[in-house]
């Protein structure tokens, strides 16, 4: 039976890196004594001590800023936003300070910002957002959105070792829902590489994060109807692994880009634009996007269900595309 949850995978990756490198430390609100709002760092204080697991005041901007400063001195800080929604409070530090130092004056900023994002947990407008698209528009940042426990562990380790600022969005609806058996031996997952989650020939679904599982269910349903669907899991949403996306679409000639984040200005547009520009001759049908509609994330279940993209919506659109 699969044993490691997505949450535990992140914890393990973080733990291993802290064991490996004494310069790695964690900073954030309620991460030490409490172990984090989602308990990702439970037990860290006891093991690594309060110098390496630092509870801060409620100051997202200072948390990011302090991480940058510690990075200047040679540490490798891992900062936590209690919810990804609060990352807007540290926005300037991320997009103007962290992202631009290397380009401007050669100063690497080796920080990781972990942030639990995503909906489906009745969190309402401020505990459900998917802020990745903002940061995917900021040269100098790297933006990761792992969907599997394997990738979550492998990517958090790569993020910590990376010498540039990395945003690590953990989908909170996956924390305890996803379980996998992970390799015994150490491994990392490279930043900037998408994965073929499922092979197929008739249609590509390009997605990431929690939507991987909706795509996967849709692919299963469509397989029953005789269609072979390929799923590309971006994993890193910026910088984008264009090659893998294009290779898939050149093979299948049809593509759906799927994300939980709201439609307009989401990463979907970027992916579609690259496909349209660079694989135009291969396309047998319009490239379509499926995403949450352009509204805040509503709280009440029936509204939130209507808001979130689902396998059923994907299947319906896919059928249309496959018959195009």
């Amino acid at each position, binding site marked *: 039976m699969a044993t490691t949850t997505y949450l535990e995978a992140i914890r393990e990756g973080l733990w291993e890196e802290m064991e490996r490198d004494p310069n790695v430390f964690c900073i954030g*609100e*309620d991460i030490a*004594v*409490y172990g984090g*709002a989602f308990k990702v760092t439970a037990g860290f204080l006891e093991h690594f001590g309060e110098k390496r697991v630092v*509870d*801060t*005041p*409620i*100051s997202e*901007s*200072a948390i990011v800023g302090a991480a940058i400063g510690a990075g200047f001195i040679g540490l490798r800080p891992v900062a936590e936003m209690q*919810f990804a*929604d*609060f990352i*807007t*409070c540290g926005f300037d530090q991320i997009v103007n300070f962290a992202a631009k130092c290397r380009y401007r004056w050669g100063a690497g900023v080796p920080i990781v910002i972990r942030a639990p994002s995503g909906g489906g*947990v*009745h*969190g*309402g*407008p*401020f*505990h459900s957002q998917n802020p990745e698209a903002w940061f995917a528009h900021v040269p100098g940042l790297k933006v990761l959105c792992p969907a599997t426990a394997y990738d979550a562990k492998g990517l958090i380790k790569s993020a910590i070792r990376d010498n540039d600022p990395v945003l690590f969005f953990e989908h909170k609806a996956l924390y305890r829902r996803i379980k996998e058996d992970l390799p015994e031996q150490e491994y990392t997952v490279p930043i900037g590489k998408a994965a073929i989650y499922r092979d197929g020939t008739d249609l590509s679904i390009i997605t990431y994060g929690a939507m991987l599982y909706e795509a996967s269910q849709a692919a299963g349903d469509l397989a029953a109807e005789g269609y072979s669907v390929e799923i590309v899991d971006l994993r890193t949403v910026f910088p984008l692994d264009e090659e893998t996306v294009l290779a898939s679409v050149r093979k299948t000639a049809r593509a759906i880009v799927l994300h939980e984040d709201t439609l307009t200005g989401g990463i979907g547009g970027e992916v579609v634009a690259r496909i349209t520009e660079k694989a135009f001759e291969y396309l047998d049908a319009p490239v379509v996007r499926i995403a949450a*509609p*352009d*509204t*805040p994330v*509503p*709280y*009440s*279940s*029936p*509204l939130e*269900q*209507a*808001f979130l993209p689902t396998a059923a919506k994907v299947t319906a659109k896919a059928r249309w595309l496959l018959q195009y």
Partner: protein
Amino acid sequence: MAAVRPMQWTPTAAAPEQDSEAGLSRRFLYYMALMREAEGRIQDKLYRQGKVLGGVYIGRGQEAIPVGAGLTTRPNDFLFPSHRDMALYFIRGVHPREVFAQYMGRAGGLTGGRDGNMHMGDMNRRISAIISALAAWIPVAAGAAMAMRYLGTSDITYAFFGDGSTSRGDWHEGVNLAAVQKAPVVLICNNNQWAYSTPLDKQMACAHVADRGPAYGIPSEIVDGNDVWAVYHATQRAADHARSGLGPYMIECKTFRMTGHSAHDPASYVPAHLFEEWARKDPIERLERLMVERGYAGRDEIDDIHAGIRQEVDEAIAWAENSPYPDPETLLDNVYETRPAGT
């Protein structure tokens, strides 16, 4: 949208004309007990029954703050509650039905299911909905107060916040702007000594939130936050100050968070003896003792108030449970005043 059509509601034991000491005491008790009862039902019943989903943050033990402060407000004042100030909504005339329906994500809730728990507001009743980002409403309260002065009224705003919220940049920017502009804002801190799991000394290196007043050139005072009369009088001073054009005034109410941070938090990081200590300072019991001592009310009358509240709450919950869920067809409504073409 439900939010903009206030319900009619007459609180059972809180007619505003009762402004004798005894009358006011009864109003204090009513609102404090109503908040206690409503929040208790939400956290200990509806949440456990799975009827309320998501986060639940209650103000148990802190009821004297929204009530003592809230009863100094005038109808045109604009209130910016924090997340442990439910009584302010009742004082503003929000019906308990609307609050329970809010928590249960129903169409009859104050936000019609759009948002949850204490994230509710009502323009008509001049009470704002917070956003999650703590202290974000401090600059908003400052701006509202500036507008009131601009319009030549003597209205003021009330901004509530916790000790931990003072660490946020927005808190600083908002208080500073209000101070420079001499905006009529009453700043009310519930210093319950914790911010989630973080104790005061990891939040700030000064002894009191009130120590921050001089940094903005504004008066600040410390008050026993479990003494509703003390909160009331201090807030009255603050409101008079603000209303007379002298600018913001800060009140730090010392209290204690008698629960975990939220319904799922057992608060094992809080030393148990502190809960015991502060239980003895319970603001409701304390008020009741005072009422009996001073002859404002007999035990029977007090019991009646509680009984009335329980009934009101029973009825309100029943109503809320019968309120329909919002229609998913409305999902795209009200993002803008007018829906843009093609959406």
